[in-house]
């Protein structure tokens, strides 16, 4: 179904740190972020804002948008029936793309794409774009992670 990057984003983690000097908010420790039916899980997530500046404490800055989210460490991404896993992920909200980096693997039904980088484009529906290798693995070889598939 149509994905709207303007939807509220929700994150939980063990800790979070907002640093005005580097203009980012980081979340660490079993991080999970959700936007609509898009779900990210990672050990660490960093959120960047438009203008690259987290508004300073005390100075009210009109709410800037989140422009980019980077995840690292045991990354899992799910969007409807698409599942991706990698060492790291970059979600570019402006370009509406999700790039899985480092033994990336994207699965949709029986269709598995692997490579050092696999990119999803949310705007046109999440379909793997520009994978290094692409192959339809026989069912037997498919990831057996319980519950990962629908």
């Amino acid at each position, binding site marked *: 179904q149509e994905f709207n990057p303007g939807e509220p984003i929700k994150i939980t983690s063990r800790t979070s740190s907002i640093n005005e000097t580097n203009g980012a*908010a980081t979340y660490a420790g079993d991080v999970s972020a959700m936007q609509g039916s898009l779900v990210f899980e990672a050990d660490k997530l960093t959120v960047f804002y438009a203008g690259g500046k987290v508004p300073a404490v*005390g100075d009210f800055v009109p709410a800037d948008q989140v422009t980019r989210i980077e995840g690292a460490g045991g990354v899992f991404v799910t969007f409807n029936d698409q599942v991706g896993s990698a060492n790291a992920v970059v979600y570019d909200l402006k370009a509406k793309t999700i790039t899985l980096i480092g033994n990336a693997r994207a699965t949709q039904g029986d269709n598995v794409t692997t490579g050092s980088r696999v990119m999803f484009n949310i705007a046109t529906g999440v379909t793997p774009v520009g994978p290094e290798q692409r192959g339809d693995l026989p069912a037997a070889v498919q990831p057996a992670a319980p519950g990962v598939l629908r």
Partner: protein
Amino acid sequence: MQLEQRYSAGDQTWRSDRGTARGRSFRSARRHSRWVRLLRYALPGIVGVVVVGYALFSWLNPFAALPENASAANMVISGTRVTMDLPKLAGYTRDGRHYELVATAATQDLKKPSLIELKDIRAKVEMRNGNSVDVRAAAGLYDTKAETVAMQDDVYVVSSSGTEIRLKEAMIDMRKGHVLSQRPVEVMLTNGRINAQGLEVSESGAVMNFTGGVAVEMNNAVPLAVSEGAR
């Protein structure tokens, strides 16, 4: 090893399963039952807590310049304890921002003159950007030697920008521009919310660390062109 952790932030609890092969379960129930949020911007109000520290410091520290008007309804002395009723004070912080502070009582025990107990603190502090911040706390202990203010029992900070912060406690170290709270914190932003079990503000507000389980929600709605003017 199947690692299951249970964290609670505020009233909600969520569960995260780590599969042995770094896989993670995606139970939609977990997703539905889980309430997660994203921060949009930092705590404009928290600096109010720091600045109020400055105000207290410059008012009560004999070595600091006295604000232009400090008054109290009356002074009651009982034994070694001196209590000022309705202390009121206005002045300027070191970087030239106006503040006003009232309390229902300020008590100093002459045996421990560096400690001042404050009751029902209400302070209003101007911010650099013209906003103002109101800080309320049921009680506070101001240590003039250590230059710290320990605010307890429901510290409430609200900024004219609409940000509200609720803390159970706030330990302000004025020298270091550092605020620490090891009890639940809730930050209500105009377009989002943060819940955490603890908060540490350092570098006088530039860095904020939320600890003990964090849940953040932000309405990241793309502003419509028409609302551009409304920002």
